[in-house]
C-alpha cells in the first residue's frame, strides 16, 4: 500500500513566537484542499495574520507547512512565493508609482529580467481588468483611495499566479460592489485553476454564504474547521467572538447571521 500525501495545504504542529511571547503553539490546520475557498475567522489579535504569515514564509516558525506533501520550509523565499503567496493585511503604501508599474514590479520582483515586454503589459492589464480596476492602470498609487489601493495590491498577488493564495483581509476596505466582485473572482479562479485559497474575513455572512470551508481560530488554536454552516454555530460564535448571534435561513437557501448583542 502506498501512502499518498494529503492534497492541498497542510499545517502541522506550527509554533510562532514574537520574542519571548508565544502566539501560536502546536497548531494543526487543514488540509486546505485545491479548488475550495476557505475562510479563516477569529477575533482581533487571535493570530490569523500570524498563522498566514508563517504559512507564507514571512515569519520564522517551528513545525511544517506542506503543499501536496512537499515541505515548504526549506525552499528559498522567491521559490516559496511561487507556490504559496501571502497577501499582507496592510495596504500598499501611497507612493508615486502607477498601478501598471506596480503590477510589473510585482511580476519581476524575483526575476533577473529588467525590461518588460508587451506580453507582460498585456498580462498585467488582463489581471487589472479581472479585478475591475483597468481604468486605474495609469493612475499613481498616491492618488488612489484606500480601497482602490487594496484592489491594486490584490491584483499584484493574483498576477503572480501562485498555486496557493493566502489573503489577509482582502475585502476590509472595499465597498459592497467590489466585495462581491472580488469574491466572485476568487471563487472562479479557485475552481478553474484548482487553487488553494485561504482568506481571512471579519464578515461572517460572507464566510457563511460564499466560502466552501471555514476555520475558526480561538486563543491560538483551531476551535472548529469544516463547512461554514457547521463551524459558524451560535455556540462557537459565542465562545470565539463573545457575541450573541442568531443564524436565520433566508428565501433562496441563503443564511444570515445577525448579532443581537455581546456576552
Amino acid at each position, binding site marked *: 500500500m502506498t501512502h499518498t500525501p494529503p492534497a492541498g495545504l497542510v499545517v502541522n504542529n506550527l509554533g510562532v513566537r514574537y520574542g519571548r511571547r508565544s502566539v501560536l503553539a502546536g497548531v494543526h490546520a487543514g488540509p486546505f484542499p485545491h479548488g475550495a475557498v476557505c475562510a479563516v475567522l477569529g477575533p482581533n489579535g487571535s493570530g490569523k495574520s500570524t498563522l498566514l504569515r508563517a504559512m507564507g514564509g514571512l515569519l520564522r516558525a517551528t513545525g511544517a507547512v506542506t503543499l501536496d506533501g512537499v515541505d515548504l520550509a526549506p525552499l528559498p523565499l522567491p521559490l516559496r512565493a511561487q507556490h504559496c503567496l501571502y497577501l499582507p493585511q496592510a495596504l500598499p503604501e501611497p507612493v508615486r*508609482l502607477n498601478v501598471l508599474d506596480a503590477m510589473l514590479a510585482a511580476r519581476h*520582483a*524575483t526575476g533577473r529580467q529588467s525590461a518588460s515586454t508587451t506580453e507582460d503589459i498585456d498580462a498585467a492589464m488582463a489581471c487589472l481588468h479581472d479585478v475591475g480596476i483597468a481604468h486605474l492602470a495609469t493612475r499613481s498609487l498616491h492618488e488612489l483611495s484606500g480601497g482602490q489601493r487594496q484592489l491594486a495590491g490584490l491584483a499584484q498577488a493574483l498576477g503572480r499566479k501562485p498555486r496557493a493564495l493566502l489573503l489577509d483581509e482582502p475585502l476590509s476596505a472595499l465597498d459592497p460592489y467590489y466585495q462581491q466582485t472580488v469574491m466572485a473572482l476568487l471563487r472562479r479562479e479557485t475552481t478553474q485553476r484548482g487553487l488553494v485559497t485561504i482568506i481571512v474575513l471579519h464578515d461572517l455572512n460572507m464566510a457563511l454564504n460564499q466560502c466552501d470551508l471555514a476555520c475558526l481560530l480561538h486563543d491560538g488554536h483551531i476551535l472548529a474547521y469544516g463547512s461554514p454552516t457547521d463551524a459558524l454555530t451560535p455556540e462557537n460564535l459565542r465562545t470565539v467572538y463573545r457575541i450573541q448571534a442568531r443564524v436565520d435561513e433566508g428565501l433562496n437557501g441563503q443564511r444570515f447571521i445577525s448579532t443581537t448583542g455581546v456576552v
Partner: protein
Amino acid sequence: MTRHHPTIVQTYQSAMRHRSLVLAGLVGALMLSILVDCAVGPAAFSPATLVRAIVAPSAVDAQTSLIVWQIRMPYALMAACVGGALGLAGAEMQTILANPLASPFTLGLSAAGAFGASLAIVLGWHVSFVPDMWLTAGSAFVCATLSVWFLDVLVRLRQGGTGTVILCGVALVFSFQALVALMQFVATEDALQNLVFWTLGSLTRTTWGTLGLLAGALGCIFPFSLRAAWPLTTLRMGEDRAASLGVDVPCLRRASLVRISLLCALAVAFVGVIGFIGLVAPHIARRLVGEDHRFYLPASMLSGAFILSLAALVARVLVPGVVVPTGIVTALVGIPFFLVIVLRGGGDAP
C-alpha cells in the same frame, strides 16, 4: 489585453517615453553645465577654443590646454561624479530605510568620514611612499565604511526596524561631530587649515587619479543598482509586501548598504563633507519621474550630478579669485531647484 485597453496602454507608453525624455534632458543639462564649468574662470575661453582644447589639445596653446585638462576638467567632472554618487546613494538609502529624511549626511557617514580625515591630519600620520593626501582619504574612507557597518551590526543585533537605524544614525552624527570638534580644538594652526577642507567640502584638490577611482566605482556600482530596481520598487510599497512577493528583504538591504557605503565613503574621502545633495536629489527625481526605480535611480543620480556641478560653478565665480568651499554653496544653489520642483509637484506624498 491590448485589444481591450488600447488607449490605456498608449497612455502608459507615452508616460514611459516622457520619463525617458526627462532622463535625456537631465543628461543634456549636466553636459552643458560641465562644459560651462570648463569655460568659465579667471581665464575665460570662447566656446570654440574650449571645444578645440578638448577634442584636439595640440591645436591650442600649451597654457590653455593645461588649464582645461589639468585644472578645470578634473574639477568639473569630479563635481558631477560626487553629485552622482551622493544622489544615487541617497536614493537607495531612502528606499531601503523607507524614510524620506535618510541621506548619507543625516546617517553620520559624512561625519564619520570627516572624523577619519581629521585623525590623519591632526595626528600627522605619515607612511613612507604614500602621499599624505591619499592617507587622509584612506582614513576617511575606512571610518565612513566602518560607521555603516557599525549601524548594520547594531540593528541586526537588536532586530530593530528602520526607525532604529535612523535614530542610531542621528546619534552617530552627533558623536562624530563632537569628535571632529575635539580634534579641531587640539589641532595646530596648520592642521586646522587642512581640516577645514574636509568639514566644508571642497573640490579643489581633485586629481585625475581620485577622479578615475570615483568614476570607476560609480560605473561599476550603478549597473548593480539598476539590477535591483524591481525589488527596490516593491520594497517602496511596504516591507511586508516585498517579502510576500518573494523578495529577500534583508539580503536586498545588505547589498544596497554595501553599494551606499562604497559610494559615500569614496565621495567623502576625496572631497569632504557635502550635505544636501544626498537628501534632495532623490526628492527631485521622485517628482520628475516617479518611483519606478528603473527611472528613479538614474534620475536621482543625474539630478545630484547636475546640482553639484552648478554649485561647483557658482563656488568659483561667486567671489572673484577665490574658490569658495563647495559644501557652503551647495545648499544655496540647490534650494531654489528643490523648492520649485517640490512645491510645483502637488500631492502630499514625499
